[in-house]
């Protein structure tokens, strides 16, 4: 029994069909708990006032926007090395989710920045990096939809994802160098005492869990959809050929 068995489309659908309801319920539970907790039952920050409540959306979205790309990178590598179709389709399925999370991170960042920095948009390194990340997502999705042959598209997008990852990292350093920025340091690190007080930290953790579960649920669902679409096309092709 190896993990690669789940690379079989049928097996993947059967397994995820069993898991998906649980993940979805857990995602909704976590999101509702975390957001309600954060919104109604946490005090205002002494410096940032009520805007601190945005953290419960901004930080998880930003985290998952990056993690989604990393997941796509891993899936692309698996496709290049082992050519498991599910892996390529999972990368395709994750891209729009990652793009939306990026937009959420950008939008909440702008809304937060307005009262804090007095401007909607600053060419701050972090914001700029996310904007660039969004462009990468756009290019990746555009390439997927432009190519007709599914395997060619999978090959080309995985290579783009690889090359794009390198350039995204480069951009990150370039942008840091280019403008030192207004953004506070990472709000989240292992030595949490330094950054966020416990009152904010626990609901934030729940929200992060919620976003992770939401991402997993969406990727499962969308990958299933992609697999079914491929299967439909394959069946139709067989029909027309025999």
């Amino acid at each position: 029994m190896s993990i690669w068995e789940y690379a079989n489309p049928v097996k993947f659908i059967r397994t995820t069909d069993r898991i998906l309801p649980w993940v979805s319920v857990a995602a909704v539970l976590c999101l509702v708990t975390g957001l309600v907790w954060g919104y109604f039952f946490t005090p205002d920050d002494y410096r940032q006032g009520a805007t601190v409540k945005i953290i419960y959306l901004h930080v998880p979205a930003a985290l998952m926007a990056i993690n989604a790309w990393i997941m796509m990178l891993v899936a692309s590598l698996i496709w290049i090395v082992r050519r498991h179709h599910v892996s390529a389709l999972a990368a395709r399925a994750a891209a729009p989710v990652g793009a939306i999370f990026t937009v959420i991170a950008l939008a909440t960042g702008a809304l937060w920045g307005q009262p804090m920095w007095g401007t909607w948009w600053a060419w701050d390194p972090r914001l700029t990096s996310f904007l660039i990340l969004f462009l990468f997502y756009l290019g990746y999705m555009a390439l997927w939809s432009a190519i007709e042959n599914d395997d060619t598209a999978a090959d080309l997008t995985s290579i783009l994802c690889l090359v794009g990852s390198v350039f995204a990292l480069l951009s990150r350093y370039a942008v840091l160098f280019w403008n030192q920025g207004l953004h506070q340091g990472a709000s989240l690190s292992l030595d949490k005492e330094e950054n966020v007080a416990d009152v904010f930290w626990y609901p934030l953790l729940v929200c992060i869990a919620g976003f992770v579960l939401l991402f997993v649920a969406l990727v499962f669902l969308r990958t299933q959809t992609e697999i079914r679409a491929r299967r439909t096309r394959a069946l139709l092709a067989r029909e027309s050929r025999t």
Partner: protein
Amino acid sequence: MMPDLGKYAFAVLASYGVSLGLIIVLVSLSLRRARRVRAELDKVEERVKRHG
């Protein structure tokens, strides 16, 4: 019960609105496409089964 957001009401509410709105749109689009593709596949599979 409602927390007093003070002068930051717009920023906070807009953030929640935009984010939840986007998530709902994403989820509903994914669900709708999932349902449509599943129905289409079922139809094709049914036909394939009938014709052998």
